[in-house]
């Protein structure tokens, strides 16, 4: 699945001055499935906005966004739902977990839509990410780092061509972050999926094929 942005500039970034190497000057790029893209920028330069556009969450931008050559301007809600179930997965910066549900329930909420992971898969992933003993806790009672890992497992509980990750390691220690990055890379490779990950400019855990500076 190919994602193409053409002359894209989100409305909130229109008034801002962008440096000469900024992606927002042209706003044009084709994301090739199977490649890893890294978006690097300090806060407030539009990293989350860019991922939100790719996920169909934001539509307040100039230019056009096409999936497999078809513009997404008038894509109906049902098709977006289908894309989010089977083609594009997203680990949100705000995580968007249901705080009053347990870890298992949060994952099940996604997994029952897709039937992608078995209980063993979930336990094994949670074990790798060191949250196996936390899964039966309510998400709201976990630390932010644990919640980040829970959100990652939930994002992997579906088939996808693209995995969008918005600062996924911001609250995870280096060792766990490396394990998480390995898990992401191996799952993406296994599925032949592309990956777009944002970071502030600090340490990179995923080896990227392309870097986009905002």
């Amino acid at each position, binding site marked *: 699945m190919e994602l193409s942005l053409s002359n894209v500039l989100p409305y909130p970034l229109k008034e801002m001055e962008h440096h000469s190497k900024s992606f927002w000057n042209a706003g044009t790029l084709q994301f090739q499935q199977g490649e890893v893209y890294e978006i690097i920028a300090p806060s407030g330069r539009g990293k989350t906005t860019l991922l939100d556009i790719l996920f169909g969450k934001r539509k307040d931008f100039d230019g056009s966004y096409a999936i497999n050559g078809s513009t997404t301007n008038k894509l109906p*809600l049902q098709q977006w739902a289908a894309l989010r179930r*089977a083609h594009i997965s997203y680990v949100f910066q705000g995580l968007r977990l249901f705080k009053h*549900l347990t870890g298992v329930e949060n994952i099940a909420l996604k997994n029952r839509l897709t039937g992608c992971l078995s209980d063993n898969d979930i336990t094994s992933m949670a074990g790798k990410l060191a949250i196996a003993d936390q899964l039966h806790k309510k998400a709201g009672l976990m630390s932010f780092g644990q919640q980040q890992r829970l959100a990652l497992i939930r994002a992997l509980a579906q088939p996808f061509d693209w995995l969008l990750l918005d600062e996924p390691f911001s609250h995870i220690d280096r060792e766990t972050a490396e394990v998480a990055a390995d898990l992401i890379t191996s799952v993406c490779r296994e599925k032949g999926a592309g990956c777009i990950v944002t970071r502030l400019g600090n340490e990179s855990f995923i080896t990227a094929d392309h870097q986009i500076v905002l």
Partner: protein
Amino acid sequence: MLRKILFNNIPATYTIGAVVGVLIGFLLLMLTLNAWNLYTAFTGSTQGQSEQYVTINKKVGLLNSLNSSFSSFKQAEIDNIQQQPFLDDWAPYLRSTFGVQASRQASANMPYMRTEMFFEALPNRFLDHKPEDFTWGKGQTHIPIIIPKEYLNLYNFGFAKAQGLPNVSEKLVGRFSFDIRLSDRQRKEQYTGSVAGFTNRVQSLLVPYAFLKSANSRFSNSETQKPDRLILKIKPNMEKDLYRYLEKKGFETTHDAFQGGRVALFVNISGTVLLAIAALIILLALIIYALTLQLTVQRNKDEIYQLILLGYSHRTIFFVYTVLQSVIALFVFALSAFLVYLLTGEAIDFLAQRYINLENFSIVPGVMTSALVMVGFLVFLAANTYRLVRRLSLRGTI
């Protein structure tokens, strides 16, 4: 799990309160519709229209007290009455042309009783309550008699109390049989009789028409009898015309007969007012319910949007809300219908005890109308919920 998320941020008391409100409103709607239907069946029923039947006679003055033929209706007068627009049906009272004596031998708890009396008869279609055994065939020596309910009351609350005699119920009265002797100067006939039923419409002692016609022909030579009293069936809402006519002609009737018309007017007005108040309460209950549902969606807008971002279709979310609304609606409908069934059953029994048998009444039309209102309300709720959920899915906020 979806239900756990979609109804998360609304206290259960809100929902329960709204459901109770809708239940009360809906029950009121069904009750009002059924009360209205009950009233329509009552005014439309020939048996229930006691106020539409009027017995008239000429005023007893000095002239006709001297000569009884003055109190009879002349053919021209009857013809004139027949032409009146308010008249639906009429019949003359057939009265006995012979002496009637009823007696009962003394028994353990009743003294010997004997009384002179008279009989009258009307065609069966003028009876408010026709007992099954109120018939007479040639050779039958037992005469069923219908007496005014008021007589039983007079006995129970006047005579029996004063004489220290026991009270009797309607059923018990029916079990007493007594001797009846018909006589004039030439003939005597012996019969037995018993009270077959009671009437609220006719203030007289009624026997089967066939019996009195046959007895009169044996006792009296003249076949034709000039009637003193007529029973008239009045067309609905024509009481005023009748009243004006009777006043003009100097005929009399029991005053109570006109209370029916006034009661009807009163019931009409109070019924309309009640219907309006009920409609207002129902409307308020439905608005509160619709607002509670809207509040539920609004308070869970973040959760709904999160589900959308996880790949749930807005139709799935709409479906969860609508299924629950339908279940609640079905529960409210079934409970209201059951309560209305019980209450109208009580009302019909209450009226039946007063000889008002509403054969035309059924709760089905009222319940069906309420069901239509409920379906309409559900469609409105569903459309509103769909609109809210869709907008939320598109924008992430309402």
